[in-house]
């Protein structure tokens, strides 16, 4: 089924923006402007953008550390993200939480990521549960990785969602590695999605570098969830194209594997498809890239001009004030 041109243009913009913002982060890290570590998501654009575009405005999602695209699609601006990376007061967490962590904002339906993987998965299940209790036709989506799949919490979340038939979509990003650990040392099965049966929910394995495939699967799962038929587990196969974080040179990854996956770059694949359908040419691509760079220059300028948080605010906000009277 061919996707409509509009959607492809949108996806193309978000995926290109995601990659450019990611490259900008790497660049800023080289300039020692980023506080602490830096996580690249290169290779994951089709997953984060494809899954996020399948959601409605009122739906909610908890992206992980390689789902930059999902933040952008949901409306967290590059301004706020870069200010976050630089530890500034205009960052999503106002300098309190680090790099890709804690970039939550429920105005955009986004739950702030925490390191402890996959801690936000059952939180999304709780939101899905809340939608059912409130009778709202909304959907929650949670991401986890091949590494996170080994954590018992992923099992508990899948089982809870299935037992209560909740409107929840699980996106498992199998990018072959958890830090340095290959999937073969993480599990003894070919597909994480095969576990779906053991919970009583449908499971699907999709090519995570194919935007259309991800979008189709996510869309189907979101519709299924919204119509009250319960959760779905989608495993997106991809490859982490950079080190675990920027300090990691990935010496443990066979170069051939990286080369093989480089051929399947999700953005180049989308662009080839768009060119085939005459939805993109060199000029248009160039325009887009320039537009994005301009956008990011402004974002970077914003971030760099944003002040650091005032140390006098250090202990503010540990507790919420007020109450439910």
């Amino acid at each position: 089924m061919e996707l409509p041109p509009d959607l492809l243009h949108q996806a193309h913009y978000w995926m290109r923006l995601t990659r450019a913002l990611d490259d900008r982060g790497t660049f800023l890290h080289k300039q020692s402007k980023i506080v602490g570590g830096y996580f690249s998501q290169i290779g994951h654009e089709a997953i984060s953008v494809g899954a996020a575009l399948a959601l409605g405005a009122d739906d909610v999602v908890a992206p992980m550390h390689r789902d930059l695209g999902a933040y952008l699609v949901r409306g967290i601006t590059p301004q706020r993200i870069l200010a976050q990376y630089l530890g500034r007061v205009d960052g999503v967490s106002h300098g309190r939480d680090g790099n890709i962590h804690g970039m939550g904002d429920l105005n955009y339906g986004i739950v702030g990521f925490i390191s402890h993987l996959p801690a936000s998965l059952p939180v999304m299940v709780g939101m899905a549960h809340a939608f059912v209790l409130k009778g709202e036709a909304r959907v929650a989506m949670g991401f986890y990785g091949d590494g996170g799949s080994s954590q018992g919490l992923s099992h508990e979340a899948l089982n809870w969602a299935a037992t209560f038939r909740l409107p929840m979509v699980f996106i498992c990003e199998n990018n072959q590695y958890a830090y340095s650990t290959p999937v073969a040392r993480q599990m003894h099965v070919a597909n994480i999605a095969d576990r779906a049966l053991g919970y009583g929910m449908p499971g699907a394995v999709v090519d995570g570098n194919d935007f259309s495939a991800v979008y189709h699967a996510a869309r189907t799962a979101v519709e299924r969830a919204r119509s009250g038929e319960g959760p779905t587990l989608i495993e997106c196969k991809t490859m982490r194209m950079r080190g675990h974080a920027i300090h990691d040179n990935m010496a443990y990854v066979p170069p051939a594997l990286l080369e093989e996956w480089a051929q399947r770059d999700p953005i180049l694949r989308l662009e080839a498809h768009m060119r085939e359908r005459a939805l993109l040419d060199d000029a248009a691509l160039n325009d887009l890239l320039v537009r994005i760079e301009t956008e990011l220059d402004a974002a970077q300028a914003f971030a760099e001009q944003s002040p650091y948080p005032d140390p006098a605010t250090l202990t503010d906000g540990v507790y919420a004030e007020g109450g439910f009277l």
Partner: protein
Amino acid sequence: MTWDQGLHKTISTIGDGNGREMTYLEAIRDAMRYELQRDPRVLLLGEDIGVYGGAFKVTQGLIEEFGAQRVIDTPMAELCMISVATGMAFQGFLPVVEMQFADFISTGFDSIVQFAATNHYRWGQAVPITIRAPGGGGLRAGPFHSQSNEAWFAHVPGLKVVAPATPADARGLLISAIRDPNPVIYYETKALYRSLKGAVPTGEEGIVPIGQAAQRQVGEELTIITYAAMVVEALHAAQQLQVEGRSIEVLDLRTIRPLDTEAILASVRKTGKVLIVHEANRTGGVGGEVAALIAEHAFEYLDGPITRLAAPDTPVPYSPPLEDAYRPNAAKILAAARQLLAY
């Protein structure tokens, strides 16, 4: 019948004032019923809390009254349960989660200390959940059904921890916990469920704010600072000393985090001597924090060593002679207080 039936041998009464007489357990249930009635956002989650009414029957009757949408029997998965409650809270609910025993809170620990406790500081998102943890020993329940593990959470910024010692506080603090926009761990004392009765003010009257200690007995010579099950024991000891002509103050902390530092210091500045009592293991317990606050901020007023009486540093043993040796009680408090008075 419930698991602990027949184990509550003597029944005490505590608290005067107005209100309906209830057991400690009934007061907890009453708080939940009151809040479920008052606010459609309140819901209960837990293992066996619905159809069965809970391992201790604390939630008995609530599923019949409020339905399975608001009194939710869950799979046996504490870590997920607490995370799910957090997600529900993000969607406007005020979930009250029951741990079947406080001992199983360690299974949900990660989600409490890492996620629930930190959201507001990190990205401004409030987590109005309440976790009920039936704690404490004295019921011959062994190492895994008798724990007093509040000190773990007393150390975690972003959490509040309460531990009522009377029926009135059991109700009043649970209502406050439910309405609090922060994650609150509510330690209820199993040994008091059916052994302690008292007048419980009803309606909004009975609300007890988090963070305020209560002077259970006024005195001049020595302050016993304690909470939960040990309050009744301390009162027995204090009353015995009163008979002997000594004047003892008993301060019930009620809230473990944040501590009511002012009340603690005011009492110690008055009496000059302090005995801290808790059922939890001594080392690293809440008593250490209380002692440190006093030693730093009321140093000039001290007329004797800050003394702690707590369980020794072992798991809670099962066999009656061991558990009796393990658990502080009125007699042990009396002995410690006498020694300190003689200092």
